[in-house]
Every structure is written in C-alpha cells, then in structure tokens.
C-alpha cells in the first residue's frame, strides 16, 4: 500500500485512497490550511500552492502550527 511519512510516522493508504494533493491531505485530517505549515521533502509549500502540489508515495511530510509557548 502507498505510504506517506507524516510527522515522522509512516501512514498507509489503501489503493485508490492515496491523497492526490497536499490540499486533499489536509482535508482528510480536517486541518485548515491557513493555520498549518506544510513541509514536503524538506521544502516548505506555501498555502496557495498546496492545491497544485502532487503527493508522491514515501514523501516525508511535516505538518506544524503555532502553539502556546514561552
């Protein structure tokens, strides 16, 4: 089954269920794109480019956001 490495963890997708773009991945997890930073294979993908960004199996994806901190 095709996989993505999301935040360090391998995540498998059933055939046909693999998210085609970065936007579809965010939608899968109900994450609002304006509050998330997406890095794919060590490259930051700006919010307006997420829809056009085609995901490939085995890509390393970091999804980060601001949280409370000192």
């Amino acid at each position: 089954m095709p996989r993505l490495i999301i935040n360090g963890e391998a995540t498998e997708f059933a055939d046909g269920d693999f998210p085609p773009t970065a936007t579809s991945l965010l939608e899968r997890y109900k994450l609002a794109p304006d509050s998330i930073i997406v890095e794919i294979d060590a490259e930051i993908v700006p919010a307006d480019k997420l829809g056009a960004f085609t995901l490939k199996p085995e890509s390393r994806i970091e999804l980060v956001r601001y949280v409370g901190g000192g």
Partner: protein
Amino acid sequence: MTVQNDKLVIAGREFSSRLFVGTGKFSSSEVMQKAIDASGSEMVTVALRRVDINNPADDVLTHIDQKKCQLLPNTSGARDAKEAIRVATLARAASGIEWIKLEVTPDPYYLLPDPIETLKAAKELVKEGFIVLPYINADPILALHLQDAGVATVMPLGSPIGSNKGIKTRSNIEIIIRQARVPVVVDAGLGLPSHAAEAMEMGADAVLVNTAIAVASDPVAMADAFRMATIAGRMGKLAGPGAQSEQAEASSPLTGFLNS
C-alpha cells in the same frame, strides 16, 4: 522622563509595555487571552510544534490580537543551531514574521541555553534577515558577541525556565546592562511581580514572563500584578534612586530636639 513617553524600541518598532508574555501552560485559551489583555503586553511569544493529526488543537493565533501585539515565535525544542534555524525558517514561512526568539536548549533538565550553538544560529539568522532575540545565560562576553553579530536584543535568564526562582544571576545581568548596545530583556525564572520590578530597577529594558502568570491560581490577576510591577520598577529606575549608605542617614532633622 516620565513613563508615559518612555518607549522601548526594538528593531525600529516602538513598545509602550515593557512586559513580554509567553502563551504556554495556560489552562485554556480563554484564560490566556484574558491574561494577555491584563498584562498590557505588546510582545507575545508562541512556539511551533507538529500537529497531532488525529487531535488537532485549537489555533493559538486566533486568541492573540496581532494588531496590538508583536508575535514572537520561539525556537524552543531546538537542540542545536541547525534545528533552531529550521524552526525559525518554518515560523517565518508560517506567518511572514521575521521576529524570532532564538533558544537552543540541548539539556532538557535545566533547559540552559547552549552559548556556542546560539551564537552560531544568531549569525546565520541575522544574515537571512531575521530580527533575532536570543535567550542566553547571563554571560556578558556572549552578550557582546551576539551584539556584534547584529541581534536586536539580548535576553539573559534570571534562573532556569519555569523555575520561578527569580534573579539568581544579578551581578552578571548588571554587567550585561552596563555594556549593552541593544535592549536587555530579562527572560526566564521570574516568579513574582517583585522579580520583574527588580529587573527593571536594575536597568533592564523589559522582562519576559510566562510560567509565573500561567500557573498562578488566578493568571489574569497575576498578569495585572506583573504589569504594575514592571511599570513600578521602570519608574523607580527613571526616578533616580538615592545612593546606598553603610550607616544611618536620618530622615528627620537632627536639631531642635524637645529634650535639649
């Protein structure tokens, strides 16, 4: 100079408040938001973390009024310069904000900052156009090196992060303040409003407080207390304190006693 027209300027931005606050450890976003309001702060720190994709938390930025407050992302969690630069780059990509609180803490027990990696990261981040506010141990020589590298402030610690112990590094912070060409912000360890006042009386330009406010029984009241203490300490410094003396100096006249 009165406290009304006394502005703090960092990287060309003017601040009326000299109390910076952190947003960690609050029991809820609502309490955090009220505490920030009560603190009067115009500089608010946030951290960057991986999203828990199965349980995405509330977006902290929706609770911070960025019209009033400068957002100051930190590099907490970074253990070396490389990680700190990566976090800073992500933070800038996330928000377009070039301000970064640089912290490099390889040791999770005391969370003391690594001076060598901090200097290395500061040089690189300044070169990349960031406004760098480094969190450091109270080391006057390191503070000078960082100023030479072009940082916007230096932020020496009073005592370890979250320890609430107050200013245990006083003598060295005094040297840093004496030698400073950029604002000095006492960061970490301030546990009581009196600690903030002490830092300001010493001549610090600002203080940064998180844990002491967030873990208080009433964080909003504590934020207000820190607000007042920071102003009080600053006013005390500007008012020009009298000299200390080894012996008593009578406050009342020493002539015209009734018993003579």
